[in-house]
């Protein structure tokens, strides 16, 4: 146990930064900075690729506040972005408690470091839970849409310009029952079936006079084009081939499939960082409780994991902008 408490034994030698460290930072802190730099480049590679695909398919890219419009306990209420804004605050606040812990560490106040680290951990865990909830909503979808032969998505509006859900279009569901093991098909699992078949949607759409189709093409002001009633019926009947509900890696009801792929990958990769951040914070938290850094005479370890935690917050600031705002 002694080895974890005393200094690394490399002070003044090459691995400890040498006799005259030019950057005046410890080895561990420098390496944390360079790890963060390389991780930042990884994330910007992902986000730049996202930007590339978005510019390439700018017409069929989903509008963020139609995708993320849920808030806990407010069912059916259109609440664009409130929840991600809350998540952003939670993460920024856990960054604040982290930096307060570092600050308390500088003054060697153990109980304060413990308290602030605890708050940081709680913030991280709440954020992870929120992200899971956000994924659930994204996967489940809200309104549903129809895919055309070319793989584009068409969505449904009423004459007031409000989105209409598939359940309000179809008169009845003629979808077949799911094959399961008890019904005799034991050697394979059935595909996931949509609630309605494409014919249910087509007949319901023809019946209800106030429905229109919105296609993924932008007018000169950058708004998606809504077709007239006749064009809508023709579009749906000629090219609609599949009902899409929610999102998976192949298609999503919001727009271009790549949006779903990038959403899962980038927020997933960020969530993985938050998860490891929480784990590392937890280890450091126990070390503080055990008094390791009190005996070492320095809370620099808290500072190093703090750097990582702030970086995770920093990445979220960018993810928030490019997925939810822009």
């Amino acid at each position, binding site marked *: 146990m002694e080895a974890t408490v005393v200094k690394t034994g490399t002070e003044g030698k090459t691995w400890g930064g040498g006799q005259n460290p*030019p*950057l*005046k*930072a*410890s080895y561990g*802190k420098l390496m944390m*900075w*360079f790890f*963060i*730099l390389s991780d*930042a*480049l990884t994330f*910007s590679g992902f986000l*730049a*690729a996202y*930007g*590339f695909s*978005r*510019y*390439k398919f*700018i*017409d069929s890219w989903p509008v*963020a*506040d139609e995708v993320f419009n849920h808030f806990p306990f407010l069912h059916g209420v259109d609440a*664009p*972005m*409130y929840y991600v804004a809350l998540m952003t*605050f939670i993460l*920024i606040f856990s*960054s*604040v408690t*982290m*930096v*307060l812990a*570092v*600050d308390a560490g*500088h*003054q060697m106040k153990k109980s304060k470091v413990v308290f602030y680290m605890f708050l940081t951990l709680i913030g991280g865990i709440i954020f992870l839970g929120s992200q899971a909830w956000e994924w659930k909503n994204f996967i489940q979808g809200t309104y549903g849409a129809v895919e*055309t*032969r*070319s793989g584009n998505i068409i969505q449904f509006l009423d004459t007031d310009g409000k989105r209409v859900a598939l359940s309000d279009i179809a008169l009845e569901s003629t979808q077949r029952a799911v094959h399961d093991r008890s019904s005799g098909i034991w050697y394979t699992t059935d595909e996931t079936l949509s609630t309605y078949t494409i014919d249910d949607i087509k007949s319901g759409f023809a019946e209800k006079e106030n429905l229109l189709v919105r296609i*993924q*093409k932008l007018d000169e*002001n*950058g708004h998606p084009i809504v077709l007239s009633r006749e064009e809508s019926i023709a579009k749906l009947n000629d*090219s609609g081939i599949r009902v899409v509900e929610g999102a998976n890696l192949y298609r999503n009801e919001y727009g271009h499939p790549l949006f779903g792929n990038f959403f899962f990958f980038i927020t997933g990769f960020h969530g993985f960082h938050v998860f490891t951040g929480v784990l590392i914070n937890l280890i450091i938290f126990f070390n503080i409780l055990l008094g390791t850094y009190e005996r070492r005479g*320095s809370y620099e370890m808290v*500072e190093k994991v*703090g*750097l990582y935690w*702030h*970086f995770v917050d*920093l990445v979220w*600031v*960018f993810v*928030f*902008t490019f997925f*939810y*705002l*822009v």
Partner: protein
Amino acid sequence: MAHGATHESSTKRIWYVFTLLSIATIVEVVLGIIKPQFLVETKFLSMKLLNWIFILLTIYKAYYITWAFMHMEGETKGLRRAVVWTAVFLISYLVFILLVEGDYIYEVYKSGFVKYNF
């Protein structure tokens, strides 16, 4: 500890920066919800003014997180430049290349002879 000579608390500055970050976030969210028509339909360098505001506010927030929370302001000039300049120059280059190229492919799809929206 590199900059450990001063042990007085900087709690005040931390809360000040938190206030700045919160205000920036609130402005972003409010603008994102109301989406003023003027900002959405006016373009600068082929991007909506609203998006420019979002991106500038994001960089503003990133600056404060790095400088105040990650304490970059207290590091030596060498460390600061090694980290920040590397990221800023590489990322600007990559983003420039990819966005220009993405827009080019969009134009090809739009005006080319291949029908892809049927």
